[in-house]
């Protein structure tokens, strides 16, 4: 599991790749939660790009839930984009789309969460 970062205006785009399972979930949490500190009104919009995530288990969902919970309590904007195949299936089973904002791709996410950042996204 790897997380790489790209900034576009006030949006922090975090591209996650690989497997998020019980073995890697702690690393995912360590990479994600500190970045949520600035996810608040007037702060960073955070979008996770899941296009290269091959697998996620409930251990990964737990981290996403903690992240969304933190963003929500800070009135921050947080979303996940580009769910693929089986990963999308488990999001659907878990009804996670009802908890976390999910988008078809990063551009769609920025269009809704931060139109200003979309202009500087390449």
């Amino acid at each position, binding site marked *: 599991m790897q997380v790489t970062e790209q900034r576009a205006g006030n949006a922090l785009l975090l591209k996650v790749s690989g497997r998020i399972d*019980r073995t890697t979930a702690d690393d995912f949490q360590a990479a994600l939660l500190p970045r949520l500190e600035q996810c608040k009104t007037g702060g960073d919009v955070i979008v996770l790009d899941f296009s290269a995530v091959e*697998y996620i288990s*409930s251990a990964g969902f737990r981290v996403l839930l903690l992240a969304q919970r933190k963003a929500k*309590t800070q009135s921050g904007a947080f979303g996940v984009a580009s769910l693929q195949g089986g990963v999308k299936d488990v999001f659907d089973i878990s009804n996670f789309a009802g908890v976390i904002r999910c988008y078809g791709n990063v551009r769609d996410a920025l269009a809704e969460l931060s139109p200003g950042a979309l202009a500087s996204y390449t």
Partner: protein
Amino acid sequence: MVTTQSRRFEADLEFLSRLRRFAEDFSTAAGANQQSRNALVLILEELFTNTVEHGYPASSEQIAQKAVWISLAIQSDRIAVDYEDAAPAHDPLANAKLPDYSGSAETWPVGGLGTLLVKSLASDARYERAAGRNRIRFAIPLKLP
């Protein structure tokens, strides 16, 4: 071609990667597609994690074998799975349900999704207590859409 394989794993998260490799190797050899392989690995990861973290009492020494036994078998167009542990009797499928996220964010439950994933992804999943073990039987189609 091997049509049935059984393995015993120590109930320790250190062995999760071996369990995963066992499931991936078997399902690949069986001709399962990517979706099916991922579903099998996911279900076994959730069951194994559940056994390790909630099944066997951490301080209990009276259970001689803190282990998990997994048997995989090809049955025409699916893989049949037997998953067993010797933890105290518990049916993880019984209370599997969608967590309630309707309240404020502070009240959201952060657990409980694993068993829901198992129940949703596994075909014909059923639990029984036999010979001092919890046994969960289920199947995964070789070609999930």
